[in-house]
């Protein structure tokens, strides 16, 4: 918490922007709970506008049903930390890209059994047995951000986080 002097001279205690990011790092993605919202790279900006905290969020896919749940989860988490005045802003451009996934997010995905995105356009290896003998089952998967692949060595199907 840091003391901030507002225009007019009143001094209030506000959580630092770093603190807010740390709190948001504890909020799981509703569809892939192993990674957090900051791991996913969708929190674009956090700042105080006077006494109001503004959090800017970018959607992963324009129709992703998790978007409204994510906004609700952010609001719930920050209100629980004592943030009273909160505005959630939507930013479309620049559009979200899987390049914004954090390194720790990528590692957590792989450990969870979801192959992280690769610039080459397909998974690097099977997240279970590390084989590189793979085949694509479908360009789409159980959520807008994933595709379905199968390992030809261990024969297990797995999710691949699409590279966009």
């Amino acid at each position: 918490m840091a003391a901030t002097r507002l225009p007019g001279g009143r001094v209030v205690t506000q959580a630092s922007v770093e603190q807010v990011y740390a709190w948001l790092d504890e909020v799981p993605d509703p569809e892939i709970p192993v990674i957090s919202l900051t791991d996913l790279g969708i929190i674009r900006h956090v700042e105080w506008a006077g006494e109001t905290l503004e959090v800017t969020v970018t959607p992963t896919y324009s129709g992703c049903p998790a978007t409204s749940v994510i906004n609700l989860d952010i609001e719930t988490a920050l209100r629980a930390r004592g943030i009273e005045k909160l505005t959630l802003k939507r930013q479309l451009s620049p559009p979200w890209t899987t390049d914004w996934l954090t390194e720790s997010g990528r590692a957590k995905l792989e450990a969870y059994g979801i192959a992280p995105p690769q610039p080459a356009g397909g998974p690097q290896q099977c997240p279970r047995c590390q084989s590189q003998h793979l085949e694509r089952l479908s360009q789409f998967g159980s959520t807008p951000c994933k595709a379905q692949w199968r390992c030809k060595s261990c024969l297990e199907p797995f999710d691949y986080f699409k590279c966009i």
Partner: protein
Amino acid sequence: MSTLYDFALRMGDNTLILGHRVSEWCGHAPVLEEDIALANTALDLIGQTQLWLGLAAEEEGSGKTADDLAFLRDAWEFRNALLCELPNGDFGRTLMRQYLFDEWHLLMLKALQGSSEKRVSDIADKAVKEVSYHVERSRDTVIGLGDGTAESHKRMQEALDYLYPYVGELFTPDAVDTAAAEAGLAPDLASLRAPYDEALAATMAEATLSLPDSRFAHKGGRTGKMHTEHLGHILTQMQWLQRAYPGAAW
């Protein structure tokens, strides 16, 4: 109403009506992977609809929402191209319709990334990624089924013959399109035709399908002058809840 309103409405109605049509496959596709792919495509299109109709509602300025525009207008107020409202037919025809639309959609969105209106270029920046993915799949499927078995080839040729006369409308400008192009809001529609033709020729050659010679075009959807009988049937299903229980919410 402003050119921006008319333009956003046309973009949003295309994605709304096609998205709804594609969603009709949910639970009915020939294999699970295709079912999921169709549902995901529909979801992207409906998501883009929220952006376009949200922009139209904002521009309209009377406090309406994207939902109001989607659920409370009647058939003659819709501005989607006729191609989007045509019935699904079989799986092959659905994917042919998707491909014919996707190829246009991608060219349009790429041009809109350079729009003079930031709210338009922002939506295009977002949607272009999703639509690049759609066209990759619809093109592959058209090629796979066209150059497939005798039966799949026959059905794909029939689908192309049936749908192709609805393509021309996408490239036929009216006063709204001309005003949008002059304002730098959107590209000159006719300028998209040459790259579209080139892409189609390459795909159909690979798919061993013949493009019809005739450029005859059914028109009237984008201007609202004359929709097909099919649009009203979509609306009765899509809108009945808000019509029967006005204002109902989750």
